[in-house]
């Protein structure tokens, strides 16, 4: 080889330039490869999320809407102001639930973008290590693989529960209250229902 100190300096500079060129080329490769992650790719998970959650929401909505109709009919309130109010409340809850699903679908899409971006960063760390294998950049590469965690998607849960609790439950309470009022009415007017209601304290 026969290199002097000036040759060594030249060799060192040449090696450094080669490393930089390799990194630049590699970054170009990474950018080119990742340009294939188009908006349509991210839209895919958004659509999949919506297509998964929306039918579940309607499975909750339909029986609840029917239950509301049955209860209103039982109480002779179909077409009343109460009918309009309760159906309006249900529609509002439904709209909020749909919005929530849309937001979560958007969140899933953004999460996927974050994972792709993280992977791109991991690759650039690997590139830096590859261009200079004995460097300390290896530590970052070793940690990179442990950052990602697989994502799972859960069913939506009870999205219309508030309506059911507040209004359908309230209707049950009203039904019982109606029964209780009739009972109390009979209790308070023993003359009308004589003998039908047991009298407290022996009728005194």
């Amino acid at each position: 080889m026969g290199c002097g100190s000036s040759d060594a300096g030249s060799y060192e500079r040449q090696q450094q330039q080669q490393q930089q060129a390799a990194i630049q080329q590699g970054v170009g490769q990474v950018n080119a490869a990742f340009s294939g992650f188009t908006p349509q790719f991210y839209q895919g998970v958004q659509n999949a999320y919506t297509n998964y959650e929306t039918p579940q929401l309607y499975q909750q909505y339909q029986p609840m809407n029917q239950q509301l109709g049955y209860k209103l009919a039982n109480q002779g309130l179909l077409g009343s102001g109460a009918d309009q109010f309760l159906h309006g409340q249900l529609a509002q809850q439904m709209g909020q639930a749909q919005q929530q699903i849309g937001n979560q679908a958007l969140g899933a899409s953004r999460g996927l973008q974050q994972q792709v971006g993280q992977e791109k960063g991991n690759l650039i760390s690997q590139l830096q290590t590859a261009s200079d294998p004995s460097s300390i950049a290896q530590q970052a590469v070793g940690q990179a693989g442990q950052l990602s965690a697989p994502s799972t998607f859960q069913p939506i849960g009870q999205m219309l529960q508030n309506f059911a609790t507040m209004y359908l439950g309230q209707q049950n309470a009203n039904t019982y209250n109606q029964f209780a009022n009739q009972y109390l009415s009979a209790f308070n007017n023993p003359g009308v229902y004589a003998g039908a209601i047991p009298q407290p304290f022996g009728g005194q």
Partner: protein
Amino acid sequence: MLAGTASQMYASNAEGGAENSAVANEMRRQREYQQRATGLFNQSLGQSAPQAAQQQIQQGRQQALQAGQPAMQMPYAASTVPLPGGQDRLSQARLSSQLGLGQQANANLQGYGNYPLQQSLKDMDIGGQLGVVNREASQSAGVLPAELQQASQ
């Protein structure tokens, strides 16, 4: 890192042919380590491309579909009273269709969960292999000063 060490060694041992040979050999070994590491990087890049991501997502969908098969094969209760005109079968077919569509939608979504998992596994694997190359390169570079010292004596 090696280049700096080599430069110092060259400076202090410029006239020694043995020293130059040791440094040249070490430079050659480092280039080989670099080639191995670059191969690993290229492998990693190939497994992160959009096409690979789509395959991983598709694989995740298939796994989710297979995981749901036992549940799909479970018998579900028919009406307690047989319905006239074969409506029981119609009802069951409708329910089965709904379950199938739900399972497909679930699989389409769960498939996306496989992508970060596979990428994470791949990064750990590549990171481990790069670690091996790193250690070998560092150890090899660490021997060079001793070789130069020995050659200068």
